[in-house]
């Protein structure tokens, strides 16, 4: 089937799509944390996969290839979102475009809504690559090895990105008067 897909046969692509759409969706929703957006990005991922069929080597793992493309699609989204987020917050000076998003269940009462909003804002101002590594490592609690395979970098580089994300976040929070 992989050879047929690499030759550009639509039936093979459909079979691969149906087999892997859930897995690709899960890997995207873990990063963007929005089911509707994750559906759009799943279609975008398979659109990229379809366009790149001629470059696919049937001897290699389709799952790993698809996961890598999915992560890149999510990363591209974060880059554009981060850009518009920064522009919007600077232009309108309104602090809460994240307020509409679902809030975590059973929040720690010591952490106020304002602190959560400011933390989320500070996090979304980090470079997208750091956001992805930190989300997968700290929120999803995925092993570094797994994240490394998804991002196509070494486990050491993942650790470094997570550390840099935490350090930058701490600086941004302190600037806002929040002592983590």
């Amino acid at each position, binding site marked *: 089937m992989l050879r047929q897909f690499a030759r550009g046969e639509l039936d093979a692509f459909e079979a691969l799509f*149906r087999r892997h*759409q859930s897995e690709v969706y*899960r890997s995207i*929703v873990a990063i963007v*944390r929005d089911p509707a957006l994750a559906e759009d990005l799943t279609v975008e991922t398979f659109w990229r996969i379809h366009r790149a069929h001629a470059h696919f080597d049937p001897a290699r793992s389709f799952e790993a290839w698809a996961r890598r493309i999915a992560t890149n699609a999510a990363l591209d989204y974060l880059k554009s979102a981060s850009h518009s987020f920064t522009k919007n917050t600077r232009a309108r000076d309104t602090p809460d475009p994240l307020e509409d998003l679902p*809030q975590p269940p059973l929040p720690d009462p010591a952490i106020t809504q304002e602190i959560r909003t400011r933390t989320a804002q500070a*996090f979304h101002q980090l470079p997208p690559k750091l956001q992805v590594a930190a989300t997968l490592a*700290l929120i999803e609690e995925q092993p570094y090895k797994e994240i490394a395979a998804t991002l196509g970098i070494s486990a050491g580089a993942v650790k470094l990105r997570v550390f840099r994300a935490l350090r930058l976040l*701490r600086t941004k929070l302190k600037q806002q008067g929040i002592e983590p």
Partner: protein
Amino acid sequence: MNASEQERIAKLLKQSLPQVTDDGAQLGRDLWPVMLQRLRQPPEPAPWLNQVWFDWALLAALAVWLAFFPAAIPVLLYHL
């Protein structure tokens, strides 16, 4: 930054970012019809083609002009 500080920031982050519920973590519908629709859309022209059409038009005009007036080539080279 020490380990306990890292843990505190990680905890704060978990409390602050939207959680993906069990329902949201699973794909709720088959996306193939959407994919098929996307595949059937005519391909969009490359954005760079739209942005640089004027450059290409200018280059074509220059080529035509030089074809009709080859004596202008040294003058053009002198001014470049």
